């Protein structure tokens, strides 16, 4: 009997999770395109983050032109836990721009980078709408595997919405990213997002620039193209992250 090496067993786990859960996924009916999280945490690190999403869809006036912006500040409390708080604003698809929600986020790094065939983490999110009684909580499994210069990342989220002003429901999301580590200043990637009424795929570019005193600026920019009739045609996303100690 031929025994499978631990590395291959872990690889099988990583791929199996994706394939097993993707076809039957019952996902969020909101905006699915966001960012793909890695499972890593650095202690003492402070992070300032701006995320922007612009949706274009000629067939859906309610979504066409919608902008969502997130401003966040985070801190690595230990070598396992990272916490971040966000303020989320939106123009609501043609309405006046305003703050719509606040969110708390905690990332838990479960394994050391490179220790197993894949690296694992968990992300916990709690969001509260500023107008009305609307809450959303989610837990996301984060997995990352390296194949030389290639890096594959999967995020599988399960969430629940509740409150007096919203119909309570379970949601889930799947986010995948394949990235090539070409050079620190420029890395091309391909991302896939899945939601109840959404499937999207598109190219992303990302890069980092180091400053003195262990400061770093990271950016991501790309467009996710809707793959189904129900999906918005284009979702442009931008992320700018400034990290320092």
């Amino acid at each position, binding site marked *: 009997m031929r025994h499978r090496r631990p590395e291959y*067993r872990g690889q099988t786990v990583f791929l199996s999770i994706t394939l097993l859960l993707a076809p039957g996924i019952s996902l969020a009916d909101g905006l699915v395109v966001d960012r793909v999280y890695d499972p890593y945490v650095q202690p003492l690190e402070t992070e300032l983050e701006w995320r922007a999403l612009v949706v274009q869809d000629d067939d859906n006036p309610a979504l066409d032109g919608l902008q969502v912006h997130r401003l966040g500040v985070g801190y690595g409390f230990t070598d396992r836990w990272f916490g971040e708080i966000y303020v989320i604003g939106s123009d609501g698809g043609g309405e006046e721009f305003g703050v719509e929600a606040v969110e708390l986020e905690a990332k838990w790094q479960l394994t050391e*980078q490179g220790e*197993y065939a894949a690296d694992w983490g968990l992300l916990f999110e709690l969001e509260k709408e500023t107008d009305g009684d609307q809450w959303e909580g989610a837990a996301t499994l984060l997995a990352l595997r390296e194949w030389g210069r290639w890096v594959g990342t999967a995020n599988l989220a399960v969430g629940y919405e509740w409150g007096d002003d919203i119909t309570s429901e379970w949601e889930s999301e799947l986010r995948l990213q394949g990235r090539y580590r070409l050079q620190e200043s420029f890395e091309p990637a391909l991302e896939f997002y899945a939601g109840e009424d959404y499937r999207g795929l598109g190219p992303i570019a990302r890069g980092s620039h180091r400053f003195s005193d262990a400061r770093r600026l990271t950016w991501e920019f790309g467009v996710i193209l809707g793959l189904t009739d129900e999906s918005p045609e284009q979702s442009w996303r931008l992320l700018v992250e400034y990290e320092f100690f």
Partner: protein
Amino acid sequence: MLERTACRRLVLLWMLAASVKAVAADRPIVELEIRNHLFHPAEILMPAHTKVKLIVYNRDPTPEEFESYELNREKVIMGGQRAIIFIGPLAPGEYPFFGEFNPNTAQGKIIVK
């Protein structure tokens, strides 16, 4: 539908547990020290195509970050503590690393043969 979803979640948990158990116990161990914002030794030899457990002892009272884009590793080591960094398997070659808090002095490289 609910049973199908529950089954999927159970299988997912089982696979996660199996992954965590799959640890190779006989990995080579290499030790590295940070003293006075310098890496000792500054050059480390490692075998090719082998995963290595690198233990970094920070003998300084201040934190340091082991950083290497070539190795795809980034790890903050608090003052007076140690950290474990798993590296490889790597192809033969040279892989530079540095201390991000003291990049002018804390420099080194891993030579893989």
